[in-house]
């Protein structure tokens, strides 16, 4: 394989081969200085596999919690939020933010889907539709499409495959750690020519090269000049692999920092999505330690890296971490939990208002469990997203009700979040 020596000059040179790329960067830089709304940043973290909300934010004060959860119930080791709720001990950075009034939990949210299928529920979570197969593009993509009519806006997907939430008509950039482009090669220009009538490959290559140029700047701005060494999110390391887990956390923090570098660079994306998997804990879920604890530590490190990396821009930022569904209220026969309904969403960011839990707590009383097995939802996830998009990014209500979350007028935006 050819040795690729990345340098800022090479990378910018590659981008310069396409006039559009630098114009794009310049236009973005100009737009970003225009007004307060343009500074607002939004990051959506998808936790795939059905993240167990009752372990993310255990309701220690709920009298039925310990009995339902048995061996996977958390106790004093959890990080207290209030008289009822705590955060998992792996979520230490998120907890510090919560103590500072910059993080809140929504403990019983769900999408409108009730099929308990990962794939349907993820589709509904990401398309923003009321039911599966109703939409083929993602709600963040339609948000970009809507905002782009009024102002310059751009979006970034982090990871080797683009999540559905960002796919659609509006262009978006994507980036994952790897080698940088060799700016001296002719191949990019020749391919651009060969792709001039290709609706898929042409735009993808142009955008990919522009993003590579931004990556070099992003990494330089957070002190990771040169090549990205960050590992991509992968399944949780097995129990006992502590050093692997620490390496994973260091990489996760760096991933968060690099994303922050992108977002605070002049002309950087205001909207980003990142997808983490490995939350499907049917067996040996663990309590303070274990499979889910390791995965939450990874999530916490990404969030911490993002927070630290954004520095002063954190005050303009909202992050939502959400999952397709929660898990059964009762522990199952194998020390894990099966597919359920409501789960916890995390809201973080310096732009948030201080406050308690978002939405009501249905309690874990046997009579209130959904279908006698799952935590019952009290808040439609779309209401949460709509509230943040309206108050933080200034998206208008009609677009939210009709195009971004189709036929959702009855689902009111949650107000007072930012």
């Amino acid at each position: 394989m050819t040795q690729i020596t990345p340098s800022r000059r090479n990378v910018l040179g590659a981008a310069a081969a396409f006039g559009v790329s630098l114009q794009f960067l310049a236009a973005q830089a100009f737009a970003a200085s225009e007004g307060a709304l343009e500074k607002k940043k939004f990051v959506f973290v998808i936790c795939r596999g059905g993240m167990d909300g009752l372990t993310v934010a255990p309701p220690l004060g709920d009298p039925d919690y310990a009995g339902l959860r048995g061996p996977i119930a958390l106790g004093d080791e959890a990080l207290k939020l209030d008289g009822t709720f705590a955060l998992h001990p792996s979520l230490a950075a998120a907890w510090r933010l919560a103590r500072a009034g910059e993080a809140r939990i929504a403990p019983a949210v769900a999408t409108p889907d009730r099929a308990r299928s990962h794939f349907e529920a993820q589709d509904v979570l990401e398309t923003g539709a009321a039911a599966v197969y109703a939409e083929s593009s993602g709600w963040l993509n339609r948000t970009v499409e809507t905002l782009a009519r009024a102002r310059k806006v751009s979006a970034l997907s982090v990871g080797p495959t683009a999540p559905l939430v960002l796919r659609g008509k509006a262009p978006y950039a994507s980036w994952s750690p790897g080698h940088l482009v060799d700016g001296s090669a002719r191949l990019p220009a020749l391919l651009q020519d060969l792709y001039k009538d290709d609706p898929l490959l042409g735009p993808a290559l142009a955008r990919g090269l522009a993003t590579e140029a931004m990556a070099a700047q992003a990494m330089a701005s957070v002190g990771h000049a040169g090549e990205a060494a960050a590992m991509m999110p992968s399944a949780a390391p097995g129990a006992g692999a502590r050093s692997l887990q620490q390496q994973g956390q260091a990489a996760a923090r760096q991933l968060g920092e690099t994303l922050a570098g992108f977002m605070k660079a002049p002309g950087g994306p205001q909207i980003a999505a990142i997808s983490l998997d490995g939350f499907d804990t049917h067996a040996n879920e663990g309590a303070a330690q274990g499979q889910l604890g390791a995965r939450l530590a990874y999530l916490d490190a990404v969030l911490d890296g993002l927070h630290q990396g954004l520095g002063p821009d954190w005050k303009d930022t909202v992050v939502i971490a959400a999952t397709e569904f929660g898990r059964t209220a009762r522990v199952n026969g194998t020390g894990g939990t099966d597919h359920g309904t409501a789960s916890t969403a995390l809201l973080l960011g310096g732009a948030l208002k201080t406050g308690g839990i978002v939405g009501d707590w249905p309690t874990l009383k046997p009579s209130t469990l959904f279908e006698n097995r799952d935590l019952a939802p009290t808040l439609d996830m779309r209401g949460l997203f709509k509230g943040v998009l309206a108050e933080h990014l200034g998206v208008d209500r009609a677009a939210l009700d009709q195009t971004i979350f189709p036929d959702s007028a009855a689902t009111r935006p949650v107000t007072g979040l930012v």
Partner: protein
Amino acid sequence: MAMPDRELAGAIAATRFGLGARPGEIGEATRDPRGWLKAQVRAEGADLFPTGGETAARRIADLREFQQSRQMAKREIAGDPQTAAEARDPVKLAQKMLRQDTAGDFLARTQLAATTPAGFRERWALFWSNHFTVAANKLQTATVVGPFETEAIRPHVFGRFQDLLIAAETHPAMLLYLDQVQSVGPDSPLAQRAAGIGRRGVGARLQPVAQRTLGLNENLAREIMELHTVGVRGGYTQADVTEFARAMTGLSIGGFRGPEAEIGAPVFRLAAHEPGERSVMGVRYRAGGREQVGAILTDLAAKPQTARFVCGKIARHFVADEPPPALVARLEKAWMGSGGDLAKVAEALIAAPEAWNPNPAKFKTPYEFLVSSYRAAAASPQGIQQVAPILTALGQKPFAPGSPKGWPEDAGAWAAPDAVVKRMQFAQGFAALFVQGRDPKRLAAEALGARLSPATAAAVARAESRPEGFALLLMSPEFQRR
């Protein structure tokens, strides 16, 4: 829809149905494109890649033995950091060896794909291995993904779907991957015994056993219905999933307490089976043991919803992300008319005019791109380092799809801007290594035949170097698609 002319059909046979053309292959296929494909269908199934002569059972037994001796070693050296450091090295070595099993299997499979003259047969096998996904997401499953494919999938891919289904769902790798091994009927003798010990509170040493509640895990039951048979719209309820999970209790893997021959092999533990009759999707199944779950799987395999769901997936894989309904209908008819004979379904696919649309609608997955690049170069990867890093960077980590749904099929999942840039970088390096004094114009003609567009042919001809010309071929719109 009329068949394309024979030249184009030959190119389509080798690149869309197959895994990409090796030099000379399109010429052979062009003589009789459909006949060339049909000749690759055979009753004994797909080709087997070598797994070092080791079965899944052997791999599971080795891993358990290693874990036990490691536990013992840990206890012995606890509190003595010097000894601990010394003991860690052999542990690392053993873990590395176990990982090498997985890497070796994956490399062998990629070499088979890169070199086989029966590219359609291999693609057909890869489709089924993705349909019945087992992912190397933990050490325990990583060592058995390869043997799972050679033992449970490949022998059955041209047999009856029912046999393939039963082989896949009862194989130790699947039982481990979707947590079936630990699932115990709540009213089974085993769970009753455990509960009894707990109530009597016998001795502190037994406490962990009592605390480990024994009970159901519905993961495999749900995914069989949702992903492997009737599909999520197949008309089942949560109650059906739970009933099916109850019926499946008892499916497990032989451990160290049973007879030597059973270690790592699939076994049925009647003591863990939930007693009683079951009702799944409106059918009652008599109380019993293994035959109960066998009957349910057989019924699921025969359902028309299963034929529709799986035939839709076949059409999506081979022809288009949104396949023509007429094609799906043809496959379904062949399936239902033959009792799920997969050889008949494969032949119906070959015969279907919709499958020969001259426009290539499928964007290659990273694995398909990599394999077809090797085939175009008439080469084969020589080490795991040549294949694993690039596949991981492109989002298709070897043997490790992120969920039981397997790898996605649609172009949107694989053609993100970043991924296209990474494909280009790979093509640059690959072309420099493999072009080796050959004429890229000739390589382009051999790789794409009548599918080669004038624009690509001109770009390759104008290239300033051989590697540049070959890289342009690999990145051309028509090579990226099939």
